[in-house]
């Protein structure tokens, strides 16, 4: 690189920035549609790989003593007697029109069933994400205050946190806070108190991941020439963090948050089951156990859709934090 980069070509670039952003969003949406199709296809065929007769599932699972006639009737009702390719295309067509079919086991429409479960899981995931961010920022900010010991403690906490499996952590917090101390219910009761332990279980490992990536860039930012300039203007250490460094540190955390949302949903399967909390995760687990194909596909599609939306959102958020990012 030669010294003193020039910028005479910036004006046209600026003008086209809005256009480029629109193009990028369009691309993202097209990519999203592709992902949804791929998810639907993969799920459809993956479920077919599970041994056993789906018609059996319709009639109450493997244990049921359904007659051959009943099975044939069920196959006809759900189109299971068609060739698999026809079934697949029919399924795709239904999904494209928003028709998720009806549950084998619950005998209700899948769409309203899932919508009723979605809010609980979204609340759980959203709260966990927020708490994870808060924890990660607190630990990263606290432990980059200068001393080496604090840094060791900080990164140690993050590594341990990131390594905790959900099922183990859930058991631990129940033992400590419910059984031992008796502060909180071991089962997720309605109301804010019931949320504390599930959110804690999901947030702590995620905070470990977030903290690890943010600590690194926070340290870089605090050591950067612009931080020195800020200090030389009379900015306090807190000011340097709030005005400059945290913004730079947040950037990798934001990119990670898209992934984190997927991580939280998969964690929700475990957490909702352990805390007996209604939600998509538990619905998914039950549906897989009962081989309830329409519900499984529905849950997977909704999760994929949410994941795509969250990714686009984090992308936009990243652009707000870093206005210099190129489309």
């Amino acid at each position, binding site marked *: *690189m*030669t*010294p*003193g*980069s*020039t*910028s*005479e*070509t*910036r004006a*046209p*670039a*600026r003008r*086209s920035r809005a256009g*480029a952003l629109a193009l990028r969003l369009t691309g993202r949406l097209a990519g999203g549609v592709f992902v949804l199709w791929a998810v639907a296809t993969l799920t459809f065929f993956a479920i077919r790989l599970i041994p056993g007769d789906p018609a059996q599932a319709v009639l109450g699972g493997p244990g049921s003593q359904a007659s051959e006639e009943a099975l044939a009737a069920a196959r006809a009702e759900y189109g299971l007697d068609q060739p698999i390719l026809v079934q697949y295309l029919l399924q795709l067509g239904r999904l494209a029109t928003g028709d998720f079919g009806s549950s084998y086991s619950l005998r209700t429409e899948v769409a309203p069933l899932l919508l009723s479960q979605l809010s609980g899981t979204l609340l759980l995931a959203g709260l966990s994400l927020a708490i994870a961010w808060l924890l990660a920022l607190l630990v990263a900010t606290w432990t980059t205050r200068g001393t080496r010991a604090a840094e060791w403690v900080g990164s140690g906490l993050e590594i341990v946190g990131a390594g905790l499996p959900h099922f183990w952590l859930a058991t631990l917090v129940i033992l400590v806070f419910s059984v031992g101390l008796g502060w909180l219910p071991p089962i997720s009761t309605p109301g804010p108190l019931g949320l504390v332990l599930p959110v804690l279980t999901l947030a702590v490992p995620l905070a470990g991941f977030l903290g690890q990536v943010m600590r690194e860039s926070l340290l870089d930012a605090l050591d*950067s*020439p*612009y931080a*020195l*300039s*800020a*200090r*030389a*203007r*009379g*900015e*306090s250490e807190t*000011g340097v963090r709030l*005005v*400059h460094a945290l*913004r*730079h540190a947040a950037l990798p955390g934001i990119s990670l948050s898209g992934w984190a949302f997927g991580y939280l949903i998969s964690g929700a399967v475990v957490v909702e089951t352990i805390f007996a909390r209604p939600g998509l995760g538990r619905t998914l687990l039950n549906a897989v156990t009962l081989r309830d194909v329409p519900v499984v596909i529905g849950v997977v599609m909704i999760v994929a859709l949410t994941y795509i939306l969250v990714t686009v959102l984090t992308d936009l958020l990243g652009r707000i*934090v*870093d*206005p*210099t990012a190129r489309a």
Partner: protein
Amino acid sequence: MTDLLRVEGLRVAFGERDVVRGVDLRVGAGECLAIVGESGSGKSVTARALLGLTGGRVDADALALNGRSLLGLSERKWREIRGREIGLISQDALVSLDPFRPIGREIGDALRLHTRMSASARRGRVLETLAEVGLPDPALRFGQRSGDLSGGQRQRALIASAVVSRPPLIVADEPTTALDVTVQAQILDLLRSLTREGAGLVLISHDLAVVSAIADRIAVMSDGVIVEEGPTSRVLTSPVAEQTRALIAAVPFGRPRGSRLSAGGPAASAGPLTAPASSPTPALRATGLTKTFRLPGRDPLTAVADVSFELPAGTTLGLVGESGSGKSTTARLVLALTTPDAGEVQVEGRPWSALGESARGPHRRLMGAIYQDPLSSFDPRLSVRDILGDAIPRDIADGRTARLAEARRLLGTVGLDDGLLDRRPLHLSGGQRQRVSIARALAPRPRILICDEPVSALDVSVQATVLDLLDELQRELGLSYLFISHDLGVIQHVSDTVAVMEAGRIVETGPTEQLFREPRHPYTRRLLDSAPRLPV
């Protein structure tokens, strides 16, 4: 007259290491004191100590601003001094403003922190300051981020952020490093004008020529102490300390080709170089080279337009121009790393750019290259031994012992000790790294060396040793150099012929001496006027 700044016996230590060991300074209002020294001499640490920002253990007999002692100030009191009483223009102008924030807010921060001015009053003062530091169209600049500005504009914005609350003392640490010469001259003018308005200025630099234009007094720093201090003209004309003399000798401008810039080494080889003219065919010939880059969403950029030159064998062609003038693209075209849109490069009279890569490949070793930043061209995990080992062709040395011997020989050629063989690039100094990169370039025994800003990231004194080395190598090995630099002083010192590039075109070519004596093109003249030099 009371001194604006008075420093006595300043000592700074990091752990067990004493970096500044008893420095005395005084600066009056309206005066410019330059602290000059090599990297590692402690000058930047001294500068930061003036703002209480070293991070090390600071101790002094006296440290007073306007008669008020700054010793033992609490962090809170220091924050009141920083930005209000003392402004710092920190090193690395290009990255010293937060890239995410509009520069108007960066500049206004000092006012936000030190005054009770309203947001609109702050904005007014920032706009005023932007105009004062010579940024055209302040209202537009206010909302731009540093990435939207050119290097010179960024430096002006950074200066604005240091002076916006009118501090009586300004500390500028290498304020013109990484700037083009013409921009450098403008920034120095700006700093000068600040002192005329009554501010005291402490200017830190490794380059005597840069500071000589504006400093009232010069303090030469070496190894944590000031070895010489006095009025600029006296220090430059009758230097007492050995370190001062070395710094003066290292300035390449006005030093004839072939004369040594650094002390030590064989002086016998010095003297005017007569081109060996070993071959009538030029080592390199470029005809009508043109390269246009088309990026989506941008106007096409013609980086190199109809560039022609000839590099006679065994001589140096200096290619000089400012950043963005197309020098590096020209180098890439010559190295056949980029394919020209039009025109041709010939090497030793044979086609080069017109060949396919399979035909060119075996001949690539004819040409070596060295760059501004050797560190980024080394695999950081490799030791010097491996770096050189990878570059030595099998037919020159095969087998472990032979290759090791060849690596040692190469290190010797570039004046480095065998002891460095097991070091990794990160643990080498800037000068050592560039020497290793020269050794690597020499490993396949090339006849042509493309040197792209090889000394631009080095201190003047280290630059001197590297330039001397390149000169010796040329004599001993009969190498031909295409030498690219933005620094006219360096170009004048190393080149037999000079080509001046502006906006992708060569605007003037000629023998070095003639071109510098009678520049014809206005751009050449402008470059020449801006080049830092010692007053004679």
